[in-house]
């Protein structure tokens, strides 16, 4: 099964890059030679560009930061979501940003156009605290989630480690 693990975010924006850091960690520990069908990468792209990146894979694991309002967030809390969860939370399918569409809209567009979109979609999201300040170091609770999510993904995908 052609699989893509993709860490999303900005690695120089404190907690924003938690997904990228998890992807880096996986790259370090996973025995890639044992998994010729696996690609691990990072991106700071949204909607269309992200959709374009994941076309052609059977299975995609997205790792992303998850920001709630200050009083609702539990930094470091890990969520495992499906594509339907994303669909559920973007009810209007309208563009969610000034210069892109939502991933769900982009995938629906690809589907309508006859592109093969990945059948298997796994999303790991880590609740974060600080996404407005430039730093390469995540806050402690978020940093602590990095090995946890790394192990979860290794377990879920039955990956061989080095």
């Amino acid at each position: 099964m052609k699989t893509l693990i993709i860490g999303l975010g900005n690695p120089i924006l404190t907690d924003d890059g938690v997904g990228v850091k998890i992807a880096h960690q996986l790259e370090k520990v996973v025995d890639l030679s044992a998994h010729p069908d696996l690609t691990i990468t990072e991106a700071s792209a949204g909607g269309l560009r992200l959709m374009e990146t994941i076309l052609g894979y059977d299975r995609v694991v997205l790792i992303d930061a998850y920001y709630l309002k200050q009083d609702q967030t539990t930094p470091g809390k890990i969520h495992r979501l499906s594509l339907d969860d994303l669909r559920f939370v973007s009810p209007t399918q309208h563009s969610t940003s000034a210069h892109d569409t939502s991933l769900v809209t982009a995938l629906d567009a690809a589907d309508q156009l006859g592109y093969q979109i990945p059948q298997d979609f796994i999303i790991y999201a880590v609740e974060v605290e600080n996404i407005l300040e430039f730093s390469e170091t995540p806050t402690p609770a978020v940093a602590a989630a990095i090995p946890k999510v790394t192990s979860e993904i290794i377990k879920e995908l039955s990956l061989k480690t080095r």
Partner: protein
Amino acid sequence: MERITIDPITRLEGHGKIEIFLDKKGNVENAYLQIPELRGFEQFSIGRPAEEMPRITNRICGVCPEAHHMAATKALDALFDVEPASVVKKLRELFYSSFYVTDHTVHFYALGAPDFVLGPDSDPATRNILGVIHKVGVDIGIQVIECRKRNHEVIKMLGGRGIHPVAGLPGGWSKAMTAEEQKIILEYAKQNVDFALFSLKIFDDIVLANQAYVDLIVSDTFTHETYYMGTVDDNNLVNFYDGLIRVTGPDGKELVKYPAKDYAKHIAERVEPWSYLKFPYLKNVGWNGFVDGVDSGVYCATPLSRLNASDGMATPKAQEYFDRFYETLGSKKSNGRYAPVHHRLATHWARLIELLYAAERMLELTEDPEITDPNVRPIMTNTPTEGIGSVEAPRGTLTHHYKTDENGILTDVNLIVGTTNNNAPIAMSIKKAAEGLIKGGKVSEGILNMVEMAFRNYDPCMSCATHSLPGQMPLEIQIRDAEGNLIETRSQYVD
């Protein structure tokens, strides 16, 4: 179930929160697009080697990393006082033109076109790229995806990496182009020209052939008479990569033309008590509030601005469309220049003309025999002190300014990002759209669509300002009374 708020996409873009302030009578007094402010970029950069900036600053933004990469690289040229070889300039401009093709494509098809293809009054649930595909046909969608795909391939080929390019060096470019790459890119560039012409045809068929849309474009609601900024070449023709920054007035007269290094002499920033955004304005005209006219230092830096600030396009087909643009919108030519078009919605058309120019320019540069010259990496010998570089980002003039110690370690960093230039005109456009729909404290239906159209044409990118994560609404309008109390919130999402 409670509405959760995960969408890996909003993360990159921030949320378009509009704040509208009413006066005592309940009419619109001020309006602005709120963009969360990122903090600490300067501190983050200080103490690092300046050569890292092209790779660091392209991380600021997920939408136009290529623009930051290029502005940073040009700032390094200046910092190390090294003049890039002709082939280096050409490779950079080629890379940058390919980026422009992708960026303008996504804006038109995914963001601009839905308002026209589906209609400004259509249901927000269908007013998106899916609606466009549904109405105009699957073939268009495939062309859009294919266009982006081949240009991303070019960006990767020339820039060294797919999303965050790494090729920019002081005075150089890390990788020469092979003859094989040239052949591939040549084919892609030709396809881009066809695609741009096809896109302009769609604009003709859907927008210009429909009198109601033409009326909307030229309506007073979407018209502002301001100064315009854009980079021009030696012949005063539009250039995205290099040249002098030219500012022309609402009357079409040139106010000033200056090299990027002089930006601080010409641009100042206004701070307002009701917003943490800074509003850049023309220093030599002065700040006279959020108003139109020759006495107001408000300027705009968009595709429309670049066309208005220039005398034309440097490629033949784009020039034909340039003429048609001004003729169609009733502009008269005097002393070799068209009078500016002030209709903000015409920016969508201007963007497509720029798309065609970028495609044609890409073709010209690829055909240039010098483009495969392998001498792309100069030796630097000068001691760095200070450097300023600028390019035209798709959404406005982008300036990077660095100071270093004698070892090239950064001591000071200042960036003026594309969208920031347009903070004041965006506020004015939102205000004007809102004024028609808020009277005596009463808010009419349709305000979201009108306000969205008012700011959408500027293609504001909030990524430079934030990577706000899931949980934000795509568009939220907050209306506050004269005392600043929140009296009403409207948003695009349905619960």
